[in-house]
């Protein structure tokens, strides 16, 4: 049984302009020690899915359907105080912009110690020592001094390390990382990836890595789920997905990664943009942008054999297309 199993999750936002179905029937699972990458463009619902698991959807949004099972227990619809016991203790989350996730007016030690004391009965001194050790583990030099610093005294990469340290404090079973490297320089990105990979392996933590950039997770995730317009369009083992993507959207994504193309060749592009959340196509949501669109695509698509395209089997072989 999976550590986290989401089934048919529906998270909607009730705005004055209409109901935005940000997450519209998403299912995925992740095991202990496993890394699942959730890939999609902005507005695909990948972040909202993560926040739904955490119970952090703010009004006017609400989880309206589906199930979220964590460690065998249904947590969708749990009362606030029950969810709070899980958050930061058994499920931790890391956010995209490290410049914004730490409170600018509180010292690092305050922000770390409070995380421990919110969940465990421990002395303040003990919590402080544990915080300092964790800060050292994520590669922050002279943690004793840095504990007394304020966020503005840290660089972006260092702040993300602090955020990761905070996530690790209570030895969570699951970490949901929402684009944690997007706002960082490429070299720092690699360091953070490497760090996370090591930590997850050490502790056997399950990891959901949300990103818009497939190439970041290619060498790192065990499995990849691709989201488009509130749905998962394809899920597969990372190698399989990259070598033989089956959904036209996934093919487009991989086709637009430069290393896959011959030198000098034009990068493949997916024409158009994602449909507005309030005005999605009736049938296949990707159809208007799909190069393989034919009659029959105007019908809604179900996820069959982990791909949401009725023509998946008929499409030309991916390797041939590239060549």
């Amino acid at each position, binding site marked *: 049984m999976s550590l986290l199993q989401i089934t048919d999750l529906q998270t909607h936002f009730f705005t004055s302009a209409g109901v935005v179905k940000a997450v519209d029937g998403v299912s995925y699972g992740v095991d202990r020690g496993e890394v699942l990458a959730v890939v999609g463009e902005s507005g695909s619902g990948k972040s909202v899915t993560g926040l739904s698991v*955490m119970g*952090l959807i703010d009004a006017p949004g609400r989880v309206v359907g589906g199930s979220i099972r964590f460690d065998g227990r249904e947590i969708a619809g749990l009362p606030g105080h029950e969810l*709070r*016991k*899980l*958050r*930061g*203790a058994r499920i*931790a*989350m890391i*956010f*995209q*912009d490290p410049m*914004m*996730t*730490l*409170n*600018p*007016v*509180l*010292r690092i030690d305050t922000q770390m110690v*409070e*995380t421990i004391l*919110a*969940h465990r009965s421990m002395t303040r001194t003990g919590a402080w020592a544990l915080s300092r050790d964790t800060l050292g583990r994520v590669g922050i030099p002279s943690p004793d001094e840095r504990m007394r610093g*304020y966020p*503005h005294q840290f660089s972006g990469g260092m702040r993300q390390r602090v*955020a990761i340290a*905070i996530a690790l404090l209570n030895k969570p079973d699951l970490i949901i990382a929402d684009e944690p490297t997007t706002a960082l320089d490429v070299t720092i990105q690699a360091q953070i990836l490497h760090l996370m990979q090591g930590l997850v392996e050490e502790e056997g933590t399950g990891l959901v890595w949300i990103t818009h950039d497939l190439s970041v997770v290619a060498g790192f995730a065990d499995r990849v789920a691709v989201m488009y317009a509130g749905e998962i369009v394809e899920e597969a083992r990372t190698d399989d997905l990259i070598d033989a993507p089956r959904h036209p959207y996934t093919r487009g994504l991989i086709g637009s990664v430069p290393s896959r193309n011959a030198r000098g060749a034009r990068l493949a592009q997916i024409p158009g943009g994602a449909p507005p959340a309030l005005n999605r196509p009736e049938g296949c949501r990707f159809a208007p942008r799909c190069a393989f669109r034919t009659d029959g695509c105007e019908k809604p698509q179900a996820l069959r054999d982990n791909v949401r395209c009725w023509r998946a089997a008929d499409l030309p072989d991916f390797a041939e297309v590239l060549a």
Partner: protein
Amino acid sequence: MVFVIRRLLQALFLAFVMSFLVFAGIFAVGNPVDILIDPDATQAERARLIVQLGLDRPFHEQYFIFLGNLLQGDFGNSFVYNRPALGLILERMPATLELAFAAIVIAVVLGIPLGVYAGLRHGSPGSQAVMAGSILGFSVPNFWQAIMLIMVFSVMLGWFPVSGRGEVGEFLGIRSSLFTLNGLHHIALPAINLAIGHLALVIRLARSGTREVQAQDFIRFARAKGLSEPRIVLVHLLRNILIPIVTLVGMSFGGLIAFAVVTETIFAWPGMGKLIIDSIRMLDRPVVVAYLIVIVVIFIILNLLVDLLYSLIDPRIRLDEARQ
């Protein structure tokens, strides 16, 4: 240090400019001799008094004499009371300061919780009621509101005295009417009167600050850490909305002292404000000038204090940068 010295120099210059402007302005007012001297006085008596008060000299001489005296701490004698003007003002200052202090306490203690509530529960009936109340509090002219307070709570209900300052008690060497029950009984209405306008402002600031901070990632991260709601609001949110509120409180303390003119007049509160209104009416030039100089000094001290407080609340601001 450089910062503090520069601020002090600026302050001195400001005080100097103000002394000139005020003196020049007051010089243009009608002749105080007419008010001060008994109409039945003889011509000789008049002349003697004019010379005694220095009113026969040309404008610039009067000013330089005044400035010279000022530097020695001599603000001149009140025409009306025939006592040092500065002494008159300092004597009445505690009454005004305690009134302004009580008003600030009311505005902050009620304003922050109400504003944070209105921000957190944005759009709820409770929040809308708070905001409607704040618009009303902002719009009600201070003096009329004072009359209404007296009418309802003193005349109709008889809960509070109509006017005056109560008994003064001493605590830690400070003498204030805040330390006796009778004193608190007397200060309640004037303090509420002085507070309401600022209460409305604090509510607005706390509300907009709350809404802004609430949407920040670090609040969401604090939730993701599993912190309790009280801790998030009381520590993470509050610390971040305090800066504009501290600014307001610091800046408006001066405004409160000025606005105390109205409150003190209506409630017959024996403070500086009532003194200045009486002095303006009686053309008591030295008292008006001394009052303004004192106000300028109070303002300058307040501004410095606000800057110092900033750096305590927000670690990102260092003192020497604060005014750059």
